[in-house]
């Protein structure tokens, strides 16, 4: 079975989803979905370990060699993203049952889990494939299931949010498809490696230029890069809690992976920078995203929406790393990709536990909750500190590498702006601390909420604690994200050299 390792992290949820649809009892579907997610996670870890030892793994689907057939091509970067996505999926499914059960009506629960597994299969498929069109197909699977998941949010505003996301996401996906069509027309191939060999001869072609622009804009829509982020706050706010945790920790990360894959591997860096002033575009949009996202986040009356805007800002940091255009810059972007999943995972998971108790995420409902749910709120606090980038947390490592990368290019203004962005983060995290610990509790909405000290259900609490501790752990033991990211960044750049 070891030779089939590259396909397993995608195949398991892909097979699991239709089987889960046959299970009509929600508890059975939940147990099954947990098993599938854990097996997927195990396969992804094994795959990451194997790429670490053996380098790039290639897998010819259907037994047809690339470029005639579809190829899976797993390097460190693929392995890291696959592990991250399946790990977060396992955490959400294992810990989130209580929250899903509370926020989803009984008849919808098992189909909710089917859609969740489909979303996992889609994201894993995007992260594993070495074929440009195959990437689009799995993008469609993940997108459609995400729209459905967002639409199952608690009230009817979720439907509007899902509809907005559907329109924006479909435009993004169509742009990506148009772009892939253009470059297929010029090269006659869809395999990424093969494209990478054939595209450098086409630097003069305006069709290749248009294809590149369509792909980048389409991916940036999916990534929610400012100013294409308009779908994100609504979708994150109105989706049910577990969907928000999963999306915030994985969907935009996979989109960032696609952006990096296309602008560094498929189109080599020389082409990319020739076609578009990528450095200027990404650095400018990134820094604007950091400030716009953080400033709006400060003024939100709802913590969930505030954290959603904070995600827009954090995507800005990652894109700055990509825009720096050096090996360390890319490494910083990838380290932040990993760490940000942990931070937002911890924050949204702890918030889900609070929402389970008080009914919503408005600041007015959160007043003084720190005394009732000390452990949950400690997790939120740790996630928040990590988001600011306090030393001893994973967030510090991200910021450190980013600042080093930017300082290496001697762009001191940018360094100052990045640090100023951190201060803005501190402002909205302080607002959270102030409300949660110093606020006076008002009347609660949910009638059965017990007075006095009452933590969240054990599952939610356990996963929040694990994710919060992961933020601390990866603040000290940085080997996994940093070494994987540096290996991935070096191989992306080595591929770019003729």
């Amino acid at each position, binding site marked *: *079975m070891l030779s*089939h390792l590259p*396909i397993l992290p995608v195949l398991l949820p*892909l*097979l699991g*989803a*239709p*089987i889960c*649809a*046959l299970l*009509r009892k929600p508890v059975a579907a939940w147990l099954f979905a947990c098993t599938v997610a854990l097996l997927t996670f195990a396969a992804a870890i094994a795959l990451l370990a194997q790429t670490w030892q053996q380098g790039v793994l290639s*897998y010819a*689907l*259907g*037994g*047809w060699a690339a*470029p*005639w*057939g*579809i190829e899976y091509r797993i390097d460190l970067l693929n392995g890291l993203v696959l592990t991250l996505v399946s790990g977060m999926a396992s955490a959400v499914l294992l810990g989130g049952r209580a929250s899903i059960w509370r926020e989803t*009506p009984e*008849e*919808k629960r098992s*189909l909710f889990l*089917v*859609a969740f597994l*489909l979303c996992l299969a*889609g994201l894993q498929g995007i992260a594993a494939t070495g*074929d440009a*069109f*195959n990437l689009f*197909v*799995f993008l*469609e*699977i993940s997108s*459609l*299931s995400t*729209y*459905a998941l967002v*639409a*199952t949010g608690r009230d009817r505003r979720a439907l509007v949010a*899902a509809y907005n996301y559907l329109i924006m996401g479909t435009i993004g996906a169509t742009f990506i498809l148009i772009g892939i069509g*253009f470059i*297929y*027309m*010029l*090269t*006659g*191939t869809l395999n990424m490696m093969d494209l990478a060999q*054939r595209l450098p001869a086409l630097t*003069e*072609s*305006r*069709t*290749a*230029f*248009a*294809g590149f*622009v*369509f792909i980048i804009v389409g991916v940036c829509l999916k990534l929610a890069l400012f100013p294409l982020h308009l779908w994100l706050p609504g979708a994150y706010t109105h989706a049910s809690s577990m969907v928000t945790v999963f999306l915030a920790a994985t969907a935009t990360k996979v989109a960032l992976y696609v952006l990096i894959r296309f602008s560094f591997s498929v189109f080599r860096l020389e082409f990319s920078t020739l076609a578009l002033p990528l450095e200027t575009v990404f650095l400018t949009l990134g820094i604007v995203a950091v400030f716009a996202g953080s400033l709006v986040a400060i003024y939100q009356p709802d913590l969930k929406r505030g954290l959603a805007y904070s995600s827009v800002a954090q995507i800005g940091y990652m894109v700055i790393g990509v825009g720096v255009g050096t090996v360390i810059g890319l490494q910083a972007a990838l380290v932040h990709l990993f760490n940000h999943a942990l931070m937002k995972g911890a924050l949204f998971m702890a918030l889900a536990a609070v929402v389970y108790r008080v009914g919503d995420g408005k600041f007015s409902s959160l007043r003084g909750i720190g005394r009732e749910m000390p452990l949950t709120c400690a997790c939120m606090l740790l996630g928040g500190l990590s988001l600011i980038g306090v030393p001893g947390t994973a967030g510090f490592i991200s910021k450190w590498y980013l600042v080093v990368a930017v300082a290496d290019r001697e762009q001191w203004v940018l360094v100052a702006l990045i640090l100023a962005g951190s201060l803005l983060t501190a402002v909205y995290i302080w607002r959270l601390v102030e409300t949660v610990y110093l606020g006076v509790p008002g009347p609660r909405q949910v009638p059965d909420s017990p007075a006095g000290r009452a933590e969240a259900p054990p599952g939610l609490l356990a996963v929040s604690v694990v994710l919060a501790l992961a933020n601390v752990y990866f603040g000290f033991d940085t080997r996994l994200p940093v070494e994987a990211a540096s290996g991935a960044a070096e191989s992306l750049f080595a591929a770019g050299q003729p």
Partner: protein
Amino acid sequence: MELLVDIALLSMLVATAVSLILVRGLVASIMLTSIYGLLSASFFVTMDAVDVAFTEAAVGAGVSPLLLLMTVALVGRVEQQPRKRHIAFPLLLVTVTGVLLIVGTLDMPPFGSADAPALQHVAPRYLQQSGEEIGIPNVVTSVLASYRAYDTLGEVLVIFTAGIAVILVLMLPGRRGSVPDDAGRQRPRNVVVNVVSKILIPFMLLFALYVQFHGEYGPGGGFQAGVIFASGIILYGLLYGLPSVCRVIPPPVVEALAALGVLLYALTGVLALLDGRPFLDYSVLATDPVTAQYLGITAIELGVGVTVASVIITIFYAFAAHLSEAQR
């Protein structure tokens, strides 16, 4: 001659698109959407993409306008006037996109040119060797169902996802997959409709099976067959009402079939894994490689057909259930 046909079709497409933008009545725009689908299908035929035309004619001109009409029956046929129209910025975005699309065409290889890279690199092997390697005349089916079978599995999963999404969003409270009661059973009021549909439906279902099992030789295959089969069932449902059609094919059965179709496809691929071959390698199915390809393609096309038909019927059920709930 072909140039004239192309010009005629494309100008009609443009005219339809423009009137789609201008027209305000919802029923009229749905009809125009349907016409647009039919014209696109005809255009695909002139480009020799018969398989695509087939699907477009069934889905673009048939099923999706029907679903839109059912929606209009629920929400009313008049569009609410938006308070204020901001037209400048959207117009700018659309113009930029349009300009970029035109820029993209500037360095395209000429249409149909034999030197085009798309015909020089990967395609020659499909055209020249698929006869030996796969052993079926329809090269499109060879590519879809064998060389790039994994993409097709993904597409089937997309359709399955769409079905799951529609049920999740449209499910009436507390009623997953329950059969509606028989109270509102209707008979077609019109004798002509009654007689014609009774004659038509068996042939539609038969034709679906023909398209399903002749996809290797002519245009067609699981996707097209599934849509045609579903159209037959939907026609029955439209004429005789949701309760009648639900007694023929109960909703829980269709939902299960949608999942089983995907599983049939995926498990055909898993058989290869058990034998140590890559996923979706059909060579494990028989000793002779060409026979193995034939078996594999038949199995997965069946999976495609079952899932597509079931998902479209499921979507119809979901819409129709809302409609009959609203009428009550």
